[in-house]
């Protein structure tokens, strides 16, 4: 019954006290995390969980856990990421349950594999929860300040890479702080510029000073990394009482909120206290204002090669003219007097923004609290990373979040968590780990980033996951929690125990469902069912019966309580398991093939141009440019041929015997690392993680 209680901690530390309690306690840490956004907080917490003495450096402790843009969490695809971060014992899911003021399960009618848990958040509560968690974590120190410079030295000779990070120097401090690994999560602050109307100013977020000039220099000039430039934006915030909500459609929350976290059974906000959202639409007047003000809009004019989707109202109107576009008016919190107009991100001058807003009937008399603005910032091309999120050319330096070209809180948190785990492991000389795209959306995210790179801000969609029906939001705990405890070490024993209990419960429930077999006539009598065809003569198991659309596990339990009532707790999950069981079984084969190829590591120092195998020059050049980490990643590269893959396969299977240095930059002996990992991949029954049951 351990997990049946609500694991939301009521204590909130007063900020003054917490800030006083932080401060440098030593001159050397295992891991230093730079940045206190969603990536940074998850990275710092994860590094501390795996046992590393961790230092989080942020500009303002007050803005730790700030939601810089929309006040919402989750959604389709993104909700899966939140669930996975939670399954690995991250903060985001529990913070969402603490701060949520409007919960809804998106896609409820489309099948459990693509359900999208989402919540509107109270900004203040979210910040409070994250700050309280971080400031009470053992082994984690938080300090305010900005990093002026990264200390870089000669690389460890028997590991790949041209440089090694050894610490950071903070502004206004004489002494450097040393460490084994650094996780950079600087978001939009890397050479960030803010755009509004015809004015631009340096910065990464309105209201915060620009920073990271020194880091930018280190990344480009010292480490020689390839960087690109991306853009994003945020809408104006509207004063709630100036909005005529009677002209918008009310969108009520779910009557029974579904928590994000596997260890919460309810949310802090009681169902009846949830706030609604409102839906309204743009008018031809909005389109007119956008067109008339284009000459006053630097951010849009610089749109040489924008993303394929439409991040701002300007791009929506230009690309899809003459249409009505949706605008969601979202609450900013229980006590906030503001509304967030989702869909109205804009960068024109403030007076024009107000004119545009007032073209929408519900906003005819609206007042703006803060105008919308655009941000352009540098990102480091993520193909320069290992799947551990460590840079290929710099030992000990990890990157996570928007700096890798992604967009969204959930994408940032997922990377942050994984970078934190590996940064902590590196400090402890443990082998670095990667997540496969066959077992998680986090794996899909990281694999897409490091093997394909980005051309527009990367956002998670369920269509990116080829094993979508296996990687469901309901089973992230079965997929990841055991691995997180047994392999990565980032999951608490408490949570691990709970995941095992659930796994056993589901196994037992499924076995019970398979054990009861009756003729269809008997089932009809027993359950008073009309949905089963009379002509069906063969015996049917309870599992077959549960597959019917209108049958719930509760119905079976009330018909045959002696068998099924012990599993009532898992009723909901058993129904989903049964629906997907046969499909997931079929996917396992393909997953097995991919996992097999991913378990075969390609040495990073491999000289593809002169490799003694018959590879075409074209293939050699592709391999040399991308330097895939595993055979699986090589297989997915455009331009690879089956023959080239076989030659590589042949080569890597021989590699350990040749004593090649195939290090991932983690342990002293690279050879052992590869062998250990290949050995582990062979011996673990990975299918049990991928789709348990």
């Amino acid at each position: 019954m351990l997990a049946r209680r609500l694991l939301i901690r009521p204590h909130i530390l007063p900020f003054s006290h917490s800030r006083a309690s932080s401060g440098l306690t030593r001159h050397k840490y295992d891991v230093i995390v730079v940045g206190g956004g969603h990536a940074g907080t998850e990275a710092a917490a994860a590094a501390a969980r795996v046992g590393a003495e961790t230092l989080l450096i942020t500009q303002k402790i007050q803005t730790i856990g700030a939601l810089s843009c929309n006040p919402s969490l989750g959604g389709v695809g993104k909700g899966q990421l939140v669930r996975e971060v939670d399954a690995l014992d991250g903060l985001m899911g529990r913070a969402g349950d603490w701060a949520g003021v409007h919960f809804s399960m998106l896609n409820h009618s489309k099948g459990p594999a693509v359900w999208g848990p989402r919540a509107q958040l109270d900004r203040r509560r979210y910040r409070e929860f994250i700050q309280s968690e971080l400031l009470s974590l053992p082994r984690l120190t938080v300090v305010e300040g900005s990093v002026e410079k990264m200390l870089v030295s000669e690389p460890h000779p028997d590991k790949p890479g041209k440089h090694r990070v050894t610490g950071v120097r903070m502004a206004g401090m004489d002494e450097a702080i040393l460490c084994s690994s650094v996780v950079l999560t600087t978001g939009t602050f890397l050479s960030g510029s803010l755009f509004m109307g015809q004015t631009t100013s340096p910065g990464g977020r309105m209201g915060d000073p620009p920073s990271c000039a020194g880091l930018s220099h280190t990344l480009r000039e010292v480490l020689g990394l390839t960087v690109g430039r991306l853009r994003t934006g945020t809408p104006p915030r509207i004063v709630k009482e100036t909005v005529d909500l009677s002209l918008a459609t009310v969108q009520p929350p779910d009557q029974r909120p579904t928590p994000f976290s596997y260890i919460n059974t309810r949310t802090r906000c009681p169902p009846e206290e949830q706030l609604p959202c409102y839906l309204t639409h743009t008018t031809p007047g909005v389109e007119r204002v956008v067109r008339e003000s284009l000459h006053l809009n630097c951010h849009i004019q610089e749109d040489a090669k924008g993303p394929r989707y439409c991040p701002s109202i300007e791009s929506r109107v230009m690309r899809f003219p003459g249409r009505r576009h949706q605008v969601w008016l979202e609450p900013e919190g229980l006590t906030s007097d503001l509304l967030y107009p989702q869909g109205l991100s804009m960068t024109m001058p403030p007076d024009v923004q107000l004119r545009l807003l007032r073209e929408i009937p519900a906003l005819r008399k609206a007042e703006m609290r803060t105008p919308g603005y655009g941000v352009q910032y540098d990102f480091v091309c993520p193909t320069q990373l290992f799947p551990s999120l460590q840079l290929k050319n710099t030992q000990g330096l990890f990157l996570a979040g928007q700096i890798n070209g992604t967009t969204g809180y959930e994408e940032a948190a997922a990377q942050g968590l994984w970078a934190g785990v590996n940064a902590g492991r590196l400090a402890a000389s443990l082998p670095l780990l990667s997540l496969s795209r066959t077992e998680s959306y986090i794996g899909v995210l990281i694999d897409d980033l490091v093997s394909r790179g980005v051309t527009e801000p990367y956002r998670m969609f369920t269509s990116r996951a080829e094993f979508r029906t296996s990687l469901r939001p309901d089973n992230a705990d079965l997929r990841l929690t055991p691995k997180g405890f047994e392999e990565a070490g980032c999951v608490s024993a408490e949570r691990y125990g709970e995941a095992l209990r659930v796994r056993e419960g589901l196994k037992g429930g499924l076995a019970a469902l398979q054990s009861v077999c009756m003729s269809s006539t008997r089932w009809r009598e027993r359950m008073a069912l009309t949905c089963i065809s009379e002509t069906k003569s063969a015996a049917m198991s309870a599992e077959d019966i549960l597959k019917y659309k209108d049958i719930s596990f509760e119905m079976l339990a009330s018909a045959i309580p002696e068998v099924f009532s012990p599993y009532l707790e898992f009723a909901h999950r058993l129904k989903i398991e049964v629906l997907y069981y046969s499909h997931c079984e079929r996917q396992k084969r393909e997953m097995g093939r991919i996992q097999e190829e991913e378990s075969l590591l390609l040495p990073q120092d491999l000289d593809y141009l002169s490799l003694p195998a018959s590879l075409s020059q074209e293939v050699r050049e592709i391999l040399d440019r991308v330097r895939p980490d595993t055979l699986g990643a090589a297989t997915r590269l455009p331009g690879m041929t089956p023959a080239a893959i076989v030659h590589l396969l042949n080569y890597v299977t021989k590699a350990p015997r040749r004593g090649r240095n195939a290090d991932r930059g983690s342990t002293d002996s690279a050879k052992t690392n590869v062998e250990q990992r290949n050995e582990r991949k062979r011996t673990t029954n990975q299918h049990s993680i991928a789709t348990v049951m």
Partner: protein
Amino acid sequence: MNYVIGEMRRASTFLTRTLRSRTIKRLTNGGPDSAGETIFALSSGQGKCGVAVIRVSGPASALALRSLTGPRQSFPTPRKAFLRSIIHPHSEEMLDRGLVLWFPGPRSFTGEDCAELHIHGGPAVISGVLEALGSLSSLRPAEAGEFTRRAFHAGKLDLTEVEGLGDLIHAETEAQRRQALRQMAGDLGRLYHDWSQRLTRCLAHVEAFIDFSEDELIEDGVLNQVDESLSQLVREIEGHLSDERKGERLRSGVQVVIAGATNAGKSSLLNLLCQRPAAIVSPVAGTTRDVVETCVDIGGFPILLSDTAGLRDTQDTVEIEGVRRARERVQQADLALVVVDSSKLPRDPRHVAASLGGQLGEVLSGQASQRCLLVLNKSDLLSEEQSRGIQSALRERGDLPQACLLSCHTDSGVNGFLSVLKNSVQILCGDPLVGGPSLTQARHRAHLLECVRSLAQYRQYRDLDLALAAEGVRLALIGLGRITGRVGAEEILDIIFRDFCIGK
């Protein structure tokens, strides 16, 4: 036993070596049966063979063997040949009588359960049996090199033997590519590509509905349109599958193309080989403007010989099209005869090889893997000294393909050329992958069936679970993609963002 050449020869070499080799480190997690799917392929050559061998490997091999030999027959004892009637599992029509063999895993070539069917070598029988196997839902045609790759994964091949595996797979992939190009060049190709585009769009719209309809303006009507498009698609594919006329004439036989610069004597060579004036010959450059096709028998092997327009830069629109077709035909051919006017070769023998290399590259468009023979025509116009110079230049340069100096005018050197050509054709016919349109057709058929079956999953789950329904469309696109090329997640997103206004 002359049918046991090509793939079979390789296979038997592998087998004997496997017997010699000792325990090999396994790469797979779960041993042989983790490969899962059951595959089949023709593993003997075509042409003058009395017997064809079709091989099946995977967990459903026993099922396949039982389905094709009828339930009343006793199941064959392992590794012994039995005479059986081969029956189509659905129509129950008798396709042939032949020998069947059963090799239960792990003591088989791939380490999995394997079956072999030794049937009569006629194209109709072969395509009938391949089609019958493809109609079983648990079987699919093997990809290039898949049998050997499975054997490798099962630890049946020594790592040193794998050195050759990459080259083997390369050859097989190339052969399949050429074969597919031939099939896809005409109306059939257009048909498949049209299907693929429509299916891709349907999938994009389903994916858009799943990923974005809760936040963005995507009406439910989108799915109704997808329903209609998919039903239409299924009707068309099913209609195509049941069309006995098969749409296009199968071009069977080894495809040999004659190509080269204008006025090198390509049409003269064609007329010489088919011993009748099939093509118009004139001293005017650019006489042949379209592809001239003719069937000939060389050393008992069926050859489809095509004469093509001479390759040159031209402003004439008809000739431009002729040159395009010529280049396309060269890419699709199993063997190219590159004709060169020997009287126009450099006088200095030291420059001959370089000149030939250049012309060869021009004709083959840089496709180094294309099998070809060099035909140096118009030897009657050469002096004794020139002839000797050219021949010694050819002997010294090992990187040029085999070359024959001849004269279509005086017939000198023609006999030597014929025996070289006959040899090449014999080797090609021994390769089970070359010139087998029935094989390609069986493959297409199986993939189209897979596509139709997967789309049934869409219909089944459309109102129950859209994720499972979408899975059906994904699988259908993977099936069709095996014919027309893979469609990745990025292409789907391209369509989504083009067709719908998706915000941040």
